[in-house]
């Protein structure tokens, strides 16, 4: 009995359905709360080639919902780790790891290689970026998103008269309209449901079974155990907001994460730390994250601890935060700025991975 016998005997699916999955190439953007169930189910279903794009590392507070990962993976990069775990389970699947965040320069190239994209990212910048790229490249996009106890699922660029995210929301939210960039609470089971719905729609798109959720948006509220479906119509604004060409796409600014944090270069950050007593340079990574940095003037306070007890910063005028890539420190800098509007709070640009970082030499050696 082969691994897929129970699905190939399904009426309407059969060997043909399985062959379609085996020859499919899918890209999962974000290996987080949504990405984990998406990956688990699509790998188990027998997709032939799976790309995973995520520039983040696993931290302890991810574990309630990011079900691929366990305690032993804290501090490890998400995309590589997810691929390694799944490769061990299913050695015949081809995994491609893209251990970076998508941006206007790399998105078209990365997405261009795949038949279908699943978006499980956690910010509007990436959602609009992936949407526009998929419209330009005419790739089906299965988007999932969550907010506290609720979730959304949509299938774009598929079927007759396809719609996209900008038909629903032509412009990205700005400033105050951005629902808390900081992480909000979430019960792990919710992205489990939404991600599993995404995986389901992906299988339907790829194999042609059933009626795909195209041209619709499905809401789910876990507290009420209620689904709500709406039909999406074309919005004349949508076309105007999508870049018309590859060049226009590459020069568009999708940096809308949560109000932009103030960034500082490593050079300046080190200089301030050395010469100003009122400046504090903080390593906000999880304690297990490599490379371990023991350097005079750098203090370690993991992101979660700083969120719980921001008063630890009250004696400093300038707070300089850094992490692996500058992503988490950017988010935290924006949050802390709201708490301490009078202070200068910076995210060190590019984090440890930045070429001019004085801390990245060990990282490079272990990576290559």
């Amino acid at each position, binding site marked *: 009995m082969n691994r897929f016998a129970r699905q190939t005997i399904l009426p309407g699916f059969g060997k043909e359905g399985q062959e379609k999955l085996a020859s499919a190439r899918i890209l999962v953007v974000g290996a*987080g709360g*949504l990405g984990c169930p998406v990956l688990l189910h699509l790998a188990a279903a027998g997709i032939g080639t799976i790309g995973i794009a995520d520039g983040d590392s696993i931290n302890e507070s991810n574990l309630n919902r990011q079900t691929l990962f366990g305690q032993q993976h804290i501090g490890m990069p998400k995309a590589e780790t997810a691929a390694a775990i799944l490769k061990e389970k299913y050695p015949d699947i081809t995994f491609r790891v893209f251990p970076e965040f998508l941006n206007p320069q790399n998105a078209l190239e990365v997405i261009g290689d795949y038949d279908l994209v699943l978006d499980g990212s956690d910010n509007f910048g990436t959602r609009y970026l992936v949407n526009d790229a998929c419209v330009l490249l005419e790739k089906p996009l299965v988007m*999932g*998103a969550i*907010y*506290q106890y609720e979730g959304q699922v949509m299938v774009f660029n598929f079927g007759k008269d396809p719609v996209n995210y900008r038909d629903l*929301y032509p412009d990205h939210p700005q400033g105050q309209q951005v*629902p808390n960039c900081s992480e909000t609470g979430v019960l792990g089971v919710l992205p489990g449901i939404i991600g599993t719905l995404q995986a389901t729609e992906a299988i339907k798109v790829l194999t042609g079974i059933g009626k795909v959720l195209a041209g619709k948006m499905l809401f789910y509220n876990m507290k009420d155990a209620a689904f709500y479906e*709406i039909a999406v119509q074309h919005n004349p*604004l949508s076309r105007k907001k999508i870049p018309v060409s590859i060049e226009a796409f590459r020069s568009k600014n999708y940096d809308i994460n949560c109000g932009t944090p103030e960034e500082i270069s490593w050079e300046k950050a080190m200089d301030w730390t050395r010469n100003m007593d009122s400046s504090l340079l903080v390593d906000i990574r999880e304690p297990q994250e490599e490379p371990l940095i023991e350097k005079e003037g750098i203090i370690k306070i993991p992101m979660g601890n700083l969120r719980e007890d921001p008063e630890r910063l009250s004696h400093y005028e300038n707070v300089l935060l850094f992490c692996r890539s500058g992503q988490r420190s950017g988010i935290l800098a924006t949050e802390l700025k709201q708490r301490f509007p009078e202070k200068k709070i910076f995210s060190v640009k590019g984090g440890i991975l930045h070429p001019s970082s004085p801390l990245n030499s060990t990282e490079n050696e272990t990576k290559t």
Partner: protein
Amino acid sequence: MEYQHKRGTPKSRIRNKMETLKVKAFGMVAEKLPEQEFAFPPQTDTAAFLANLYLEYPELKDIKFSLAVDRKLVNEKTALQGGEEIALLPPFSGG
């Protein structure tokens, strides 16, 4: 008749000009409102509905959301006859 009223498609539903609107709020929008689901006085169109909704709940102005009337997304000013279900649908960003 009662069954028809609850389950009928919008076309088969007999509308009464005085019938109130049923508003359903999602996500962040629901947080700014006293109830997730509530009745609202009938309005001539979606623009009037929004204007009056903002008057009553000014906090909603800070949030981005789309409108669906009887489970269909509306992008432009749409006439209302009364009795419609209007959903306030914000985008979610979490993953």
